[in-house]
């Protein structure tokens, strides 16, 4: 679960990964790690119980429902963040990409473009001096 060239660290997925906040490369919150997609180390194989696996993607959004009530979402409905986009894992999961470039950001963008962005002052920077 560590990247090449970094020191190895044992991470308990349930304790240190699930339900952690996901931030984009500017530190803007994107989602929470709702579930993980495990794949076989070799992309040509399908994952099987008992065999080694690696994290393919972080799942968000709809996966929360199946975490709460059980079951498994169909692959087409999964909101995924590729594990290759992950930069660092601390008390948060930091990505190396912008939130706007991710598919999982669609709900935020929808509310922004259809509602909040259209109200006058929606683009106003509250920390600006004027």
């Amino acid at each position, binding site marked *: 679960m560590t990247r090449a060239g970094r020191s190895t660290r044992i991470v308990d997925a349930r304790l240190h990964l*699930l*339900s*952690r*906040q*996901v931030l984009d490369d500017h530190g*803007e*919150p*994107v*989602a*929470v790690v*709702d579930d993980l997609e495990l794949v076989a180390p070799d992309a040509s194989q399908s994952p099987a119980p008992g065999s080694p696996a690696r994290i393919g993607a972080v799942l*968000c959004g709809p996966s*929360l429902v199946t*975490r*709460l009530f059980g079951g498994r979402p169909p692959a087409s409905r999964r909101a995924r963040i590729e594990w290759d986009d992950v930069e660092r894992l601390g*008390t*948060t999961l930091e990505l190396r990409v912008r*939130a706007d470039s991710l598919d999982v950001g669609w*709900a*935020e*963008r929808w*509310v*922004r473009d259809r*509602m*909040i*962005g259209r*109200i006058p*002052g*929606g*683009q*106003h*920077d*509250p*920390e600006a001096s004027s």
Partner: protein
Amino acid sequence: MKRILGAALGILTAIGGFVDIGDLVTNAVVGSRFGLSLVWVVLLGVVGICLFANMSGRVAAVSGRATFEVIRERLGPRAAGANLVASFAINLLTLTAEVGGIALALHLVSSVEPRLWIPVAALAVWLVLWRTKFQIMENVAGLLGLLLIGFAVALFLLGPDWGELVRQVTQPSVPQSESPAVYWFYAIALFGAAMTPYEVFFFSSGAVEEGWKAKDLAQNRVNVLVGFPLGGLLSVAIAATAAVVLLPAGIEVSSLSQIVLPVAAAGGTLLLAAVIIGIFAATFGAALETSLSSGYTLAQFFGWSWGKFRRPARAARFHLTLIVSLVVAVAVLMTSVDPIAVTEMSVVFSAVALPLTYVPILVVANDPEYMGRHVNGRVMNALGGVYLVVIVVAALAAIPLMIATGAGS
């Protein structure tokens, strides 16, 4: 010089921001029925809120993580989801009470029907949330809230029998006209009013909004440890004016005009005007804090972008939550439900919800992964442990006592 001014400002806003509609109503009701025999609860509540505000502020400053992110991470989706539903609902109830409080304060000065003021008040709250800088919003509401000192001034002008008041504080007993169950019911209500969970959500998220770092912790501690106890004194002053004027006259508080009656009797129009502005500022400030808290809790649970420091479009779902919460609060109030009754409900349910907020904070404040060398010390943990017991007992006893006493009637 700038640092001293900044420190003074922080303390003053902490004092003025301490009292909200829950403190105002509950203290006046308790004063008018039990005199000062429940002041020990205010003291207990103030020490508790100091302890946990300090702890949640420290967690936020050191780890950069606000309270509900911590709750979600520690409790997992199921337990945190249940916690979210309860916390969000109670916070919404508090927000409704605060917006109602603004309308009642405006009603007092204008004699225009409160229901006409409710949408105006909510719109004003939203405009501030939409446009104003976080720190300006905090400072203005906190400083104007200081006008509630008018209650203390009124107490001195009334010239009460101080020996008798001190005796009520130091030797608390249940008045003959009241049953012990009702006494304990109001003890829990007062505790819930002093320690409302939204204050912790707001305090920790506010620390992230203002970009606190570990070096700001000393200032934070001073604000909390000086400001909140002095704010607690304002609460006691409210109870004391009610105890001096309303208790002997046999008036039970059921409206805002009765709460300010002692002030009008003692200090005349000018003092009354000051206190009403104070009430307006206190409820307005608390309405801002509770609506923000509704956004904070929801956004932090789901991992949405949040914060007033961002452009509204960069925290779209967060701002949508603020709008929807305010609309719901207005809709509830427009059914002509009595805001004072909503307030009394909200403080009791706040007491019920306290463990949901405080337990995760206590756990994470001890986690070195988050806190590094800033983990709780022994004294902190001992106090935290004692308060944990008090909070759990109050939470468990609240509903049975409410049913047994018919909500204190």
